[in-house]
Each structure stands twice: as C-alpha cells, then as structure tokens.
C-alpha cells in the first residue's frame, strides 16, 4: 500500500441496484500503484425461463459484518489495494444484478484471487438466503446450499 494508506474496504447491503463502473472508478481513483482490477458480477439466471424472480433475505447487521470480515481477510492475504463487495436483497428479476465484488491489486493474480476468494466465502458464510418464485405463479422453494460451494471455499484453507 503506497504511503501506508490502508486499502479501502467498501461493504454494502442494499435493495437498489448497483453501478459496477461507478464502484470500480471510486475504488481505483488515486491508486497509482494499481495495475489490475477484477470485478465479479453475479446475475439472476432465468433458469430456462421458469424463474420469475429470486427473493433475497439477509440477516441485517451480521451480513455486513461477515462480508467485512471476509474482505479484510482478502486484503491481508492477497495484499489488495482495495476491495468492494455489494450485495442486493429483496426481489430480483432474471437478468438483474445480485452481487458485485471489485478487487484492486498491483498485479493480476492477486486481483483474480482476491475477488474469487471473497465470492467463495461470501457464498458459504455470509447470511443471505435465496427463495425462487416461478413464472407459472407457483411459489418456489428455498434454494439449497451446494456442496460444490463448500468445496470451493475449502480450497483456500
């Protein structure tokens, strides 16, 4: 970190949409040592047309705290120059944004690893839950957690 300035960590949980470009621009502004920015955007898939919306529930307070812990771990582990993680809640239509992670680093591998690490931990330890609503009007169920997500997280330990 140039001049010992702490790397910015931006964490937000919000109903409204986010602007990946604006968040990226804010994070990179003034970071002359940054050579690489990786952004991850998670989108609501339409599941072959069956889905009408995902409903995202969260644990207010803990969701932000947990994402903050994950982000600070990533900054330290990969020497990131900055990180932003924004997660939406409420009803999200197919094609809509769900989550944004932006990782800033001097070199590309740290930026890729930082963003990927945050996503793998966020999937398995940030308190959010997804419920599906179907296009035929039927009430969908809660999305099951995936073993593959647990394995993805374990590869970092």
């Amino acid at each position: 970190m140039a001049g010992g300035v702490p790397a910015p960590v931006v964490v937000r949980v919000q109903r409204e949409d986010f602007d990946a470009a604006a968040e990226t621009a804010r994070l990179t502004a003034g970071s002359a040592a940054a050579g690489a920015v990786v952004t991850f955007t998670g989108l609501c898939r339409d599941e072959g047309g069956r889905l009408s919306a995902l409903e995202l529930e969260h644990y207010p307070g803990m969701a932000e705290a947990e994402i903050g812990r994950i982000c600070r771990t990533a900054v330290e582990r990969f020497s990131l120059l900055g990180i932003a993680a924004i997660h939406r809640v409420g009803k999200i239509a197919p094609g809509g944004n769900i989550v944004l992670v932006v990782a800033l680093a001097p070199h590309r591998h740290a930026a890729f690893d930082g963003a990927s690490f945050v996503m793998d931990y966020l999937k398995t330890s940030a308190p959010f839950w997804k419920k599906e609503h179907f296009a035929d009007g039927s009430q969908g169920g809660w999305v099951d957690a995936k073993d593959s997500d647990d394995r993805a997280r374990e590869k970092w330990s």
Partner: protein
Amino acid sequence: MTKLVYFAWVRERIGKGEEEIDLPAAVKTGADLLRHLKTRGEEYAHALEHEKVICIAVDQEHVEHDETIAGAREIALFPPMTGG
C-alpha cells in the same frame, strides 16, 4: 432474557422472525439450545429437525454447535447460506 432470531425456512417453520426467551441454566452450548427449543412445540421440532444443518450465530458471529452461548445477547438460527 435472550433474543432469538430466525431466518429463511427456519423462520417460516417456527412461524416468527424473533422472540425473547429465558434460557434454563442447563443450556450452555448451541446444541443444548437446539434440543431445548425442540421441546417448545411441533413448529420448533419441525424447523430444527435436522440439527446438523442448522447454523448458529451468537451476537452476529458464527459458532459451532459445541461452542458456548454463555452471555449471548442475540442468538440467530438459520439454514445453510445461499447468497452470492
């Protein structure tokens, strides 16, 4: 009194998002808490049927089932997380 909060299908099955209860002195760990709550009625027994999958957070930090919950102000019970 300890505040309990529930999320997703744990909340739906118990039928409420939060409540305050007096925990017996014998309830020392997360596992103790789950066993105690299951005696409070069918809705709790149903929500907490598969104990192993229930996640527990004490004052907004994850804890294992065998960890102490002593001194907790807020305990959250919820299914495996599916954000991101």
